[in-house]
């Protein structure tokens, strides 16, 4: 090797112009070779658009889930053993409840900050799944799933399924009357699978429902198995994001071959750190101010008891809705039964929904014959068929979601349950069929208007003495002209302030937005 390398190595740790921190970094580079990659990581450009923070919300709520979940796991007892309650919640004292339920109530009332942590955990889960869904919608409508990002799109979908599953399992853990009913339904759905259903449900529950194994098993799945998989897949998701670089919307100086935006350090780091705190703050406000899942009102689960007007968490709503409106078509023959009234809406339908999501990149590629690399995003209006399909798909899911509260709707609007049921059966089919052509038309109309969505210049309307109205363009205000600056590579030394544009008034800078 060259002599300079040897010389440097023999000198031990080379001094740095950047003081002790620089010296420490040099020591690190000697051993791990971090200087080159580290610098380019700090320079890494993140395109700026509000819709790119949706995935961040999901990431940060996952962080909150981990933190609050660890707290809860210190107090929760995953056991269906029946104990006599002696805790701090007076109405329950002396009653026979499961250790899981007793510990869930006690960690809410007896542990300082426990109720806040439990409600934050529950809210963070609802936000987590919601953020994933909205993030996925953004990816879908802007075409970010296209080559080369099909794999990352699929990872995201797996994450969505895992998040929904773990959410369901998680809210089942308190062993309260509402969630216990949900577990009962999960058992019956598993049982409905032809050929292997009863075996699967018996293996999952360690016997016939309810047994004493399901809460401990759900606990292991909820706190160990699925979080580990989610953690691994999130890492892969972010690694692929860094490796393939983020997509960007078209704009001045933005091409398929570059990324324009803000560098990781300092701008993106500051915004992301701040945003993590903001998501935490909103979750804490919700957890403290908005009650969620008051298990002490529901009571201990008992298979022979049930509550009225009970809905699952929002992300299970589409399944519950499908189960409600699907007709009672049980198939029997040759000495066997296929409970189609359960199997189709609860197993086949979600299979089709998620299958379609997984297959979408391939489906679109098949019809567009587009195998090129795409780093620039589409505006949804420019891909009317995709946008219309996505909107119809979401409308379908939305109708199923609404169908999960047929009883509440019937009560609220004072109509018969039968009317609501048939209305939902019709709407689930009809609304998507209306949404598709409507969205298609809106997209096509928007395409025809070149300045749609751009900021409009305001007019000053004056009335003359003769009663005429005159509209004259208003004077330009700062920020009206939306000229984008030329993008430049991140320099070695960032001059944070730059020269003041107005020497008369050095505190105020002229800015071209």
């Amino acid at each position, binding site marked *: 090797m060259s002599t300079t390398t040897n010389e440097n190595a023999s000198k031990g740790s080379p001094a740095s112009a950047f003081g002790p921190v620089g010296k420490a970094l040099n020591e690190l580079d000697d051993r791990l070779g971090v200087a080159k990659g580290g610098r380019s990581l700090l320079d890494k*450009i993140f395109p*700026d658009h509000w819709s790119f923070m949706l995935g961040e919300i999901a990431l940060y709520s996952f962080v909150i889930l981990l933190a609050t979940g660890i707290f809860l796991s210190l107090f929760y007892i995953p056991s269906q053993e029946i104990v006599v309650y002696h805790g701090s919640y007076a109405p329950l004292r002396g009653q026979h409840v499961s250790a899981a339920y007793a510990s869930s109530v006690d960690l809410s009332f007896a542990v300082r*900050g426990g109720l*806040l942590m439990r409600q934050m955990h529950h809210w963070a889960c609802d936000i987590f799944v919601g953020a994933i869904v909205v993030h996925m919608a953004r990816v879908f409508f802007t075409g970010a799933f296209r080559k*080369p990002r099909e794999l990352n799109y699929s990872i995201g979908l797996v994450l969505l399924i895992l998040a929904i599953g773990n959410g369901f399992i998680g809210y089942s853990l308190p062993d309260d009357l509402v969630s216990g009913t949900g577990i*009962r*339904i999960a058992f*019956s*759905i598993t*049982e409905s699978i*032809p050929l292997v*259903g009863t075996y699967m449900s018996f*293996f999952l529950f*360690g016997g016939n429902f309810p047994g*004493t194994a399901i809460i401990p098993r759900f606990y292991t799945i909820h706190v160990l198995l699925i979080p580990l998989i989610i953690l691994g897949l999130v890492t892969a998701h972010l690694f692929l994001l860094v490796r393939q670089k983020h997509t960007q919307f078209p704009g001045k*100086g933005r091409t398929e071959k*570059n990324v*324009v*935006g*803000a*560098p990781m350090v*300092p*701008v993106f780091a*500051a*915004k992301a750190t*701040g945003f993590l*705190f*903001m998501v*935490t*703050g909103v979750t804490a406000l919700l957890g*403290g*101010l908005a009650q969620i899942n008051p298990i002490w009102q529901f009571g201990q689960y008992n*298979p*022979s008891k*049930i509550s009225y*007007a009970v809905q699952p968490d929002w992300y299970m709503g589409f399944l*519950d809705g499908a*189960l409600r*409106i*699907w007709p*009672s078509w*049980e198939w*029997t023959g040759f000495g*066997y*039964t296929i*409970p189609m*009234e*359960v199997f189709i809406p609860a197993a086949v339908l979600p299979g089709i929904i998620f299958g379609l999501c997984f297959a979408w990149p391939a489906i679109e590629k098949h019809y567009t014959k587009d195998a090129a690399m795409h*780093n620039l995003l589409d505006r949804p209006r420019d891909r009317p068929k995709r946008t219309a399909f996505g909107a119809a798909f979401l409308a379908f899911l939305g109708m199923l979601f609404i169908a999960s509260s047929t*009883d509440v709707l019937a009560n609220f609007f004072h109509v018969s349950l039968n009317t609501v*049921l048939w209305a939902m059966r019709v709407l689930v089919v009809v609304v998507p069929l209306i949404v598709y052509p409507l969205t298609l038309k809106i997209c096509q109309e928007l395409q025809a208007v070149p300045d749609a969505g751009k900021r409009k210049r305001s007019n000053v309307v004056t009335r003359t003495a003769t009663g005429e109205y005159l509209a004259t363009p208003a004077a330009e205000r700062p920020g009206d002209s939306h000229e984008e600056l030329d993008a*430049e590579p*991140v320099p070695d030394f*960032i*001059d*944070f*302030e730059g020269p003041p544009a107005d020497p008369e008034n050095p*505190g*105020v*800078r002229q800015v071209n937005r």
Partner: protein
Amino acid sequence: MQPSARNPERTERYIALIMVLGIAGCIGFGWAYWVNAEPWILGATLGAGALLLGFGVTAWGKYLMPRGPFVEERHDLRGTDVERERFAAAVVQRGGGILGRRPVLAGIAGFGMAAFGVVLAFPLIRSLGPLPKKTLTETDWKYGTYLVDSTGRPIHVDDLAVGGIVTVFPKGYQDTEKGQAVDQSVLIRLSTTPVITQPGREKWGPAGYVAYSKLCTHLGCPVGLYEQQLEQLVCPCHQSMFNVNNGAVPNFGPAPRPLPQLPLFVDGRGYVRARSGFNQPVGPGYWERS
């Protein structure tokens, strides 16, 4: 290089103020925790603190840091044609070629790994639970079983008024898991007597009493609502409705089958007892159900 704030000094003051308020919120949370304040105060202080701090830091990044825009080249991820060829050659030759050269060994190794995987999965799955066997078809109801309520008190023929309903269990099973999850039934007193719900069930409903399995045939929720005027049992989960007068045939909702009826008789001392068990499996459908 300029920040995007029009007046950076003023913006800095605002951000400083917001962050100081955020710190106040965090200190407030510490105080609230120390004095064991109400949960809503804990949430409000922690939430306000984190939200304001985060808002300040984000605003700092958005308004006061150099906004660029900066640009970075996107390098092709793909290698050169030569690199791709060499990679493919190594995979195909070293991987496939090695296997193809000794097909017998490759076959045995592949079979061995598959067998290893299968036998590993066997105990893992099989140890998880027992086979269903007869647990899905059997209940604890048989000839002569007393109907008891959840406290274990036998139901006497005078206990229910017309229109009354009670959840019943086979005597001795009211506190057991199987009793509550599988055997649970509803006993209803109707105005007609005897209640003949279906042909062939002439003796099943003495003294106006009918009993049905409480497990919904849709998904196994307890059929816990009774519309007294309409004489309908309603499942709160997915709103299946069962007419108790005609053998609990579902007349609304997704339930596919009637609730199995429990034949009853009233014994010499006036206690309501089961004439036999159910004539079919209770609860939702499954493959092996004939």
